[in-house]
């Protein structure tokens, strides 16, 4: 029996002066006053729970909204051609031709993954997959950009293995190939790891679903897992507060995942969509039933009534407020016509998915919720879901920004290797450094084969999956982030990150189409962090306009900081592209001995925020490399045409670690060596390690060399012949010759040495 005394609407009307714990629920005094004004009375405790969780930073975007508008205001002209669904729905939808649409989105699960790495990361995968599912799509791939503190600290050794096992444990059991992502280490993420997750889904155009409840008399069905006590307050407590030392344990706020429940939910949803049994659908993630019912009702053309006591529970002691806030995983909410109910329930029964009618669409514009016959919620749903507070938070350029930018990594400031022996040693040191070392120990814990459509997966420049076996149509996705560049200049840094993800997609032969971003920052209440955020968003919006790739959606994660110390500003950008025939994709590994190695693009002395400055000198200063979007577009055209016309045998983006790291990765991937002649007109150190943007290493069969070079020249993109695929070493003429075995040892030993102790995962 539930001993909880129900705080009904009637009771609230008659007891206007009862003190309410709005502050403990994360609401400010003026926010609470506004709720009272909206309702014309004090909220019931259930209403207070709903408002508090829906008005949290995580759900309401109250600090970021004013900036995110730029993604809509600066939408590129190309958007009209590709976007079927834009920002605002669970995920954006892109037209890829042949009657198919692709939806993709990237999201964060940072705070839960620090508290409980395995479950935090696992439910991060589960959450983003349900977002994609709720658009009507079949999820086809996932990827996980991860950022951790310094590699050899105890905390990273605790967090990383759990996060990796959680992603694998959930994603592998769900049957979704993991095709890419990143693993990055930086001191600034100590105590605040970034666990971002991306999912891609595919559907025919006519199956696109939206989250809306319309048609009076239609039924609201909750289906999937039962509701339990997990994640109660997770959204407002975990995602909107900073970790303070000595604070209370927040472990119970993390949700626990059941990938099997999600797998059958995916299959059941596919059948529901195919049989057209659904009017509107919404996944339950952060804010659970509060979010799903208020958003569905808010987007619909009527109101909604919910019988909350009908919600199937795992824990019968839950109070109505807790049921409303529970973040139990693997649940969905659908709006269904009464005549379709039997068909809907049949599909659910086939997959052993529990489905319960918990409400109906009603006349008028209110969301009303009853608990055992008593009204506990009576609100206008838009005020909960869409008309939350909006803040124009103060911003200030960080006090140290000028000094940071003035601290250029010149040759005088940071001694550079000059002799062949010094260069050779630096190459090996860099290749073995945690950020550049092979991440196979991580990615070999993820199933990249399942579904049988993975054409390219990590460590390739982008993940490529076939989405139509008849035509060979495929999509490519890449994610990138670089907190150091963004710290030096958040506007330019965000643009560089965007340019790199865009280039990575083109490098595999796909045409970049659209962007999703996950914006990881410190506290928005810190004006310096807010300035970083605003600058990064402005940079991304401007960059997307120049590249012609609209932002389709994403996520903001604030409060990634411990005490006063925020993480490096880290927008992570995902770019989606389309490739007409996946047989034409360009891999990164050298294909044949004798192929010509070409450097496409310009190299300058650019070491601000570089991996070399970080690894060798522990230095962060100066300005990030230049960004040139016109060049990036030309380069992408070259790479796509080179792939389509069969000119290119391999290609790999030049990024962190510079040209030499790119060559090492191409060589190790193929077990083929290279003889390399660096251009005479540039310092060898700069040639090898600079991180100038807009560059790619391409290999072509000798027969295609002239045709490819002509194509570059026609687009005014510099192309330089720098070597030939040959032998079993990286032989940089007149400087050094390193056997592949030695490079492989350097690259592949680091991560296992750091993390290969007994896994901490539960059995799976």
């Amino acid at each position: 029996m539930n001993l909880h005394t129900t705080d009904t609407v009637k009771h609230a009307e008659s007891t206007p002066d009862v003190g309410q714990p709005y502050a403990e629920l994360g609401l400010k005094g003026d926010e609470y006053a506004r709720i009272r004004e909206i309702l014309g009375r004090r909220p019931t405790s259930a209403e207070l729970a709903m408002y508090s969780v829906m008005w949290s930073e995580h759900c309401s975007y109250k600090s970021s909204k004013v900036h995110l508008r730029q993604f809509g205001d600066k939408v590129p002209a190309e958007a009209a051609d590709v976007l079927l669904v834009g920002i605002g729905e669970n995920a954006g939808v892109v037209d890829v031709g042949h009657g198919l649409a692709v939806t993709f989105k990237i999201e964060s699960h940072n705070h839960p993954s620090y508290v409980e790495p395995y479950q935090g990361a696992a439910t991060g995968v589960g959450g983003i997959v349900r977002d994609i599912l709720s658009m009507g799509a079949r999820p086809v791939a996932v990827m996980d950009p991860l950022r951790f503190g310094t590699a050899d600290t105890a905390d990273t050794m605790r967090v990383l293995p759990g996060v990796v096992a959680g992603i694998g444990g959930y994603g592998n059991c769900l049957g979704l190939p993991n095709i890419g992502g990143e693993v990055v280490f930086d001191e600034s993420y100590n105590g605040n790891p970034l666990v971002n997750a991306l999912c891609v889904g595919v559907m025919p155009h006519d199956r696109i679903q939206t989250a809306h409840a319309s048609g009076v008399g239609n039924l609201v069905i909750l289906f999937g897992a039962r509701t339990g006590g997990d994640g109660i307050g997770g959204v407002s407590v975990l995602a909107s507060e900073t970790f303070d030392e000595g604070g209370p344990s927040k472990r119970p706020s993390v949700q626990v995942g059941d990938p099997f429940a999600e797998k059958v939910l995916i299959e059941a949803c596919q059948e529901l969509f195919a049989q057209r049994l659904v009017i509107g659908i919404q996944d339950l993630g952060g804010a659970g039933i509060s979010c799903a019912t208020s958003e569905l009702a808010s987007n619909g053309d009527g109101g909604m009534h919910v019988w909350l006591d009908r919600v199937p529970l795992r824990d019968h002691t839950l109070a109505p407020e807790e049921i409303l806030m529970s973040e139990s995983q693997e649940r969905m909410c659908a709006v269904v016509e009464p005549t379709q109910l039997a068909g809907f329930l049949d599909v659910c029964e086939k997959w052993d998915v529990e489905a319960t009618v918990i409400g109906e669409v009603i006349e008028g514009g209110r969301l009303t919720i009853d608990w055992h016959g008593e009204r506990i919620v009576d609100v206008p749903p838009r005020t909960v879901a869409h008309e939350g507070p909006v803040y124009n938070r103060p911003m200030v350029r960080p006090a140290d920004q000028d000094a940071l930018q003035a601290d250029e990594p010149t040759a005088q400031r940071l001694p550079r290797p000059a002799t062949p022996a010094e260069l050779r040693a630096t190459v090996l040191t860099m290749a073995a450094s945690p950020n550049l070392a092979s991440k196979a120990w991580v990615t070999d814990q993820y199933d990249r084969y399942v579904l049988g459509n993975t054409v390219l997966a990590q460590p390739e420049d982008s993940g490529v999956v076939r989405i139509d076996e008849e035509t060979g149509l495929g999509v490519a996705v890449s994610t990138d982030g670089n907190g150091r560049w963004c710290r030096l200049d958040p506007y330019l840094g965000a643009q560089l990150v965007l340019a790199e993800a865009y280039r990575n997609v083109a490098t595999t032969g796909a045409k970049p189409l659209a962007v999703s971003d996950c914006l990881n920052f410190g506290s928005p209440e810190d004006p310096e962090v807010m300035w970083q955020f605003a600058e990064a968003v402005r940079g991304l919006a401007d960059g997307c306009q120049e590249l012609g790739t609209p932002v389709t959606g994403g996520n903001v994660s604030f409060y990634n900081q411990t005490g006063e110390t925020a993480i490096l500003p880290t927008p992570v950008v995902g770019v989606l592209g389309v490739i007409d025939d996946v047989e034409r994709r360009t891999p990164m590994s050298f294909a044949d001995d004798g192929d010509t190695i070409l450097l496409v693009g310009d190299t300058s002395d650019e070491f601000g925020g570089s991996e070399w400055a970080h690894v060798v000198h522990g230095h962060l200063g100066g300005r990030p490399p230049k960004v040139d979007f016109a060049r990036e577009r030309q380069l992408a055209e070259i790479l796509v045409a080179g792939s389509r016309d069969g000119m290119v045998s391999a290609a790999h983006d030049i990024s962190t670690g510079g040209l030499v790291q790119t060559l090492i990765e191409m060589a190790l991937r193929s077990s083929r060596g290279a003889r390399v002649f660096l251009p005479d007109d540039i310092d060898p150190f700069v040639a090898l390690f600079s991180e100038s943007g807009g560059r790619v290493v391409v290999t072509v069969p000798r027969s295609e060399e002239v045709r490819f070079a002509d194509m570059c020249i026609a687009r005014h993109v510099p192309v330089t012949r720098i070597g030939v695929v040959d032998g079993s070493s990286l032989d940089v003429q007149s400087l050094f010759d390193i056997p592949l075995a030695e490079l492989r040892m350097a690259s592949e030993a680091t991560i296992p040495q750091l993390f290969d102790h007994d896994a901490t995962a539960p059995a799976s």
Partner: protein
Amino acid sequence: MTARIGVVTFPGSLDDRDAQRAVRVSGAEPVALWHGDADLHGVDAVVLPGGFSYGDYLRCGAIARFAPVMQNVIDAAGDGLPVLGICNGFQILCESHLLPGALIRNDVRRFVCRDQWLRIENTDTAWTTQYATGQEILVPLKNGEGGYVADESTLDRLEGEGRVVARYLHDNPNGSYRDIAGISNERGNVVGLMPHPEHAVETLTGPTTDGLGFFASILHGLVSA
């Protein structure tokens, strides 16, 4: 008429559509079978695919063995129907006692996904006639509980009767005793395999097409029967 090869989907099966694709690529006709099916729809052979049947929160395959369709598979296997269990399917075959031994958590205690070299040891089973004895093949391997274990006398008997179908080459990925990657029953119609031949049927998506031989063997067996 081509061979009709059934692929069972349990709730939680993951590589079922991949096994169907492999059957199709090999020239046979895939037939979808459901865990609740009361009969096998007259198929010529059955594949139990990879995945996590019913979530595998108990021992892997321990619940699937009680699925309605499995009683039919067990009966038909007794009558000589070719049955191939891949990964979770192998686990289900062991739980069903169609094959001896068990599969336990990898010795590295991590999920392992990689391309794996195997040596085909026995080409007399229903599923391996299209390979040469000693042939080395490269196919994907992906499992968390792929360590094959059995007592010494069972292992000796398997070796003595030539029932080790495939062995891991170079580096044993999961601690399987005697590097065993796959075994068969005495009659040679039931084969369990931890690696995934169905993911090595196209060079576009797999490391090789070395996996096709398992499916082609059934086709060949029917033609020559």
